């Protein structure tokens, strides 16, 4: 399972990188969304998969999955959500002020021109 997940994560990273290299601001944000999915799955996979029941003591199982990566991912999900939301509104405001969402057109004026 971990090997399969490694490939899935690789493909998520690949698509994310390709999107981030494009010109449209919206596509770049979609890319960051995919990238954070990849990173979260990576953390989970590296902690080991399917090694027991859910980390709830009420289950009374002999074996639980590792709770630490889950706590880390939960924090990461919330933070990436905050950043994504901020970024989206930033893109929206940039479009309102500049009239474009093409990053190639957003270059500042050269100081020595």
């Amino acid at each position, binding site marked *: *399972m*971990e*090997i*399969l997940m*490694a490939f*899935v994560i*690789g*493909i*998520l*990273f*690949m*698509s*994310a*990188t*390709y*999107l981030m*290299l494009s010109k449209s601001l*919206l*596509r770049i944000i*979609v890319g960051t*969304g995919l990238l954070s*999915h*990849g990173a979260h799955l990576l953390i*989970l*996979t590296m902690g080991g*998969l399917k090694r027991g029941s*859910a*980390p*709830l*003591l*009420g289950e009374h199982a002999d074996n*639980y*999955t590792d*709770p*630490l990566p*889950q*706590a880390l991912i*939960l*924090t990461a*999900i*919330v*933070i990436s959500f*905050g*950043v*994504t*939301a*901020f970024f*989206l*509104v*930033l893109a*929206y*405001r940039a*479009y*309102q*002020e500049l009239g*474009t*969402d093409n*990053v190639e057109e957003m*270059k*500042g004026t050269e100081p020595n021109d």
Partner: protein
Amino acid sequence: MSLLHLVIILPLLFSILMIFFKRVQRVHTGWFVLPLPILLFIYFLSLLPVTSSRETVTEAINWIPSLGINFTAKADGLGLLFALLITGIGALVVFYSIYYLDKAKEKLPSFYVYLLLFMGAMLGVVLSDNLIVMYAFWELTSFSSFLLIGYWYDREASRYGAQKSMLITVFGGLAMLGGIILLYIMTGTFSITEIVGNSDQLYQHSLFIPSMLCILLGAFTKSAQFPFYIWLPDAMEAPTPVSAYLHSATMVKAGIYLVARFTPVFGESGFWFWLVGGVGLITLTWGSVFAVKQTDLKGILAFSTVSQLGLIMSLLGVGSAALHYEALDDNIFLVATSAAIFHLINHATFKGSLFMAVGMIDHETGTRDIRKLGGLMPFMPITFTVSIIGAFSMAGLPPFNGFLSKEMFFTGMVRVTEMDIFNLGTWGILFPVIAWIASVFTFLYSMILIFKTFTGNYQPEKLDKKPHEAPLGMLIPPVILVSLVIIFGFFPNLLSDSLISPAMAAVLPSLIGTGEEFMVHISFWHGINIELFMTLGVVVLGIILYRTLPKWKGVYKKIPERFSLFRFYDRLLESSQSGSYRLTSSYMTGSIHSYLVYIFAFFIFILAATLIGQDAFKLDTVNVSSIGIYEWVLALFVVAGSISILFVKSRMTAIILLGAVGYTVSLFYVLFRAPDLALTQLVIETISVALFLVCFYHLPKLRQYETRIRFKLTNALISVGVGAIVTVIALSAHSNKLFDSISQFYVENTYEKAAGQNMVNVILVDFRGFDTLFEITVLAIASLGIYGMIKLRGNGRKEG
């Protein structure tokens, strides 16, 4: 703080007092400055008996003792000789400047501040025993010289000259610092005295040659040796007192001082002999040949300074050979060192007087151009007398002191032919021949200097002013200097016991035991010998060349400008500026895309290189869990979703696909037994997709955006590379598990210690509650930021 320290610091302290003299308008500021160098000169004279008996005055103050950097002042024969030159000529130059600079038109306080800074720095260089302190003073001389050259800063040429001298001397100064540090690595001390004491072991060290080259680079740039002489002619934009003081008598001799000071350390090496002697000879010849070409009086003097410095440098190089012959008696190479020191004094006297004379001509006629001048003898008889004595001494004519040092120079060079070390063999004959040719040119430009200015046709129509003799005050300093020229010419042994012999003891300390003395005896008449015939030859050929000057001067025009070192320096500066501009603008494109490409490419390169270099890739299939049908389906879903985002045309589809991938990820969390994650992921994915759609609604409905991403090979290669690297690292990391997890602790203690059953929640709010606190802060900041972005508008900042 001893008296010797005070003497070094005093000019620097005095320069601060200049603020108060700004208020005094009626008296020329120079009068306040004048007593200082005179007092210092008298103090240094009082030290003469000490150094003549081969004692030294050493005083130390701790500065940074933990680093071995202490302000150790030491006056020995060599240091005292320079200190006397600095303060003596300093006093004369200050006196001269009182009459040269107008008190109403010039900013006098700043002039004297710079001059005093320079004087203090120069005294610090020659009297410091600690190399780091010496380096600090060394850079202060570069700095104050920069300020003095750019004194008339509203002139373009002054600024150019100041910048040029700064760049070249600071380049050399930094090289010297490198050499000092290498010496410290070899010896473990910054003290010159201790380094000289341990110089025997240095010779074998692998850093010996690099440190020697670095130190010599500092000396050659400061003393305007080939090919670094190019700053000196441009430094002539400074006021004439500055040129007389810095660029003939003192600062340019700092490099000479450095070479003399380090002769006991490096002198035994053949490299030292060849480099110092060879560069000195090249500079001597080059400077004298190009001095003939100049039409500006100060230009001639600048090139002649370069040439004379080369002469002293070559003598020091040849003199280092004396270290190879242990015996003190019959050491025939000693004469080169004594000639170097003698000529050092002589050059300071005659070159100082010549600069002052040129300053007076400039002051009284309004020009320094040799083509406009002529026939000034009847108008300026005293200036003429001063100049002719100075120039004849420079040309090496009897009975002036230049004649004696020129004779000793020839002696030193002729004796190179008798040398049996350093593979000299037949090459030794080059030394006297080159020296002789250079002397012919020296004679030639000295004659040009005098006779083109004072004899020939008087051309009143080309002059701005009616020439007349300079004021008495301006005449006094050069008259004092030329009297010294004559006195040293007739009574050279005045200097030999008091100054030259102690200075030689400092340059060649290993040659004399305690109680012994260098017997320097300069006789006025050597008898009929080869040196006398060489001088006769110089005079005869010089006169012939001078007579036929108009016929062959055209040769200089044939030398193409392109090969000039001045042009080379300008090109170098220009091309380094334009080159770095082009380099920066080639990669700093301003496009986010290219920066991301650099970052990703670097990421791939570094990780791949590390993986391959460390042979870290490993695939372990034993420790993996099984894959069920659900996992296959979900994995296919994520892969299909994320890849098809790349190919969709409409961004609406892209957003929906992103949402689909997010929901699939939350299903993965369900499969992998992470209920809290699945819950959070579902909610957050929903909000995110909603946000995307809100954004989407406001985005422009332009045609160009409704296309799919244009395929680019670089982007594709880089993204495939990133994906592959991440996969490979994930696989290797999973296969290299080193330690067990610490999670057993959480499993055991979640209920026992924290009274909870949901382990993830207990970790979030109890075991690792700080993470959660700041994640809340992140959300708060994000929401405040979003609010600010929407509500706050830059007022009036919109253009157009």
